[in-house]
């Protein structure tokens, strides 16, 4: 190899997303080895995402001061799709499929970087590969006192995260401290 050879493909930002995607893939593979039931893996991935989401919410709020306060689900969905997902996944998302009086919506993530190198085998249809993203959204929203349920569904072209709003959490004082 000649010394002058320009390192090919060494683009720090791009590689860091590759590192993330490949590491995540290896983690999922390891989990599938540990648990026989893909649904257990979904739960674990959700937990991983949840814990990351709680911290990401702090990071997001500290860096993006211009984001307005959300008062309804539509604003929340817009902030998620236009600010949060581009900031951490590097791709944009679209919001659609509003249901049950603006309480449920879907986030469509196109070119999901996590699935760039992945082909989930036929026999693992019950595995939600991108469940970590769903968990992270749930964790992030819980950190700002919004309780939701989320699921990640993989379609051949993109990833759909279904979000269902449950309630606004209230700070409850511990009993006997009023």
């Amino acid at each position, binding site marked *: *190899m*000649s010394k002058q*050879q320009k*390192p*090919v*493909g*060494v*683009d*720090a930002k791009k*590689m*860091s*997303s*590759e*590192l*993330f995607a*490949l*590491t*995540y*893939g*290896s*983690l999922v*593979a*390891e*989990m599938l080895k*540990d648990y026989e039931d893909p649904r257990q893996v979904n739960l*674990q991935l959700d937990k*991983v995402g949840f*814990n*990351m989401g709680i*911290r*990401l919410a702090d*990071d997001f709020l500290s860096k993006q001061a211009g984001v307005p306060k959300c008062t309804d689900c539509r604003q929340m969905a817009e902030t998620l799709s236009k600010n949060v997902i581009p900031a*951490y996944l590097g791709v944009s998302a679209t919001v659609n499929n509003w249901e049950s009086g603006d309480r449920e919506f879907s986030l469509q993530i196109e070119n999901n970087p996590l699935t760039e*190198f992945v082909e989930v085998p036929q026999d693992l249809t019950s595995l939600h590969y991108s469940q970590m993203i769903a968990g992270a959204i749930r964790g992030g929203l819980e950190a700002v006192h919004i309780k939701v349920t989320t699921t990640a569904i993989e379609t051949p072209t993109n990833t759909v995260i279904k979000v269902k709003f449950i309630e606004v959490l209230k700070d409850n004082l511990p009993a006997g401290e009023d």
Partner: protein
Amino acid sequence: MSLPFDLLHMEMVRYGKEKEAVARADYPKEVLEGLDKATSSLVYKALASRNAETNLESIGLRTGFLLAERLCRDLPRISTELEIMKFICKEFWISVFGKQVDNLRTNHQGVYVVQDNRFPCLTSFSDGTQYVKDAAIYLCFPCGVVRGALQALGIQALVTPTTDQLPSVKFHIHIKTKLT
């Protein structure tokens, strides 16, 4: 290294530790109780395939293998051992850990020492010697990554980390056999 990766790494460590705790709970206690210290430590070593370090290392191994394959796809063939080590320390290290290594030494007999004075996986610990023990588990994944990359390039090696002052770390690479 970007923030989400650090968080993912933290979660992997948590997952590994949790799984180890579960595995420990169903170790055969009645067998272990009667044994003296030396024998029981041997039994624990035999059960080590389920501990957090092994788990993290194997995740790293797979990741490193894939990363190295992707990275040298368009490069000309790297043939000698030294060239491979240089590739690992330069291009590979930059693309994975965002910087070059600070020092590479070898005894020309199959032992290499890679030194990184500011290793990204350790920067969230406070500097100094206080947390060296707690930081150890955060080096298992990078070790696996390095070993996986070497394997992708045709070298079987043993990679062990040592650190006596955070955030600097030395990776000792013992080359076992060269695959041809």
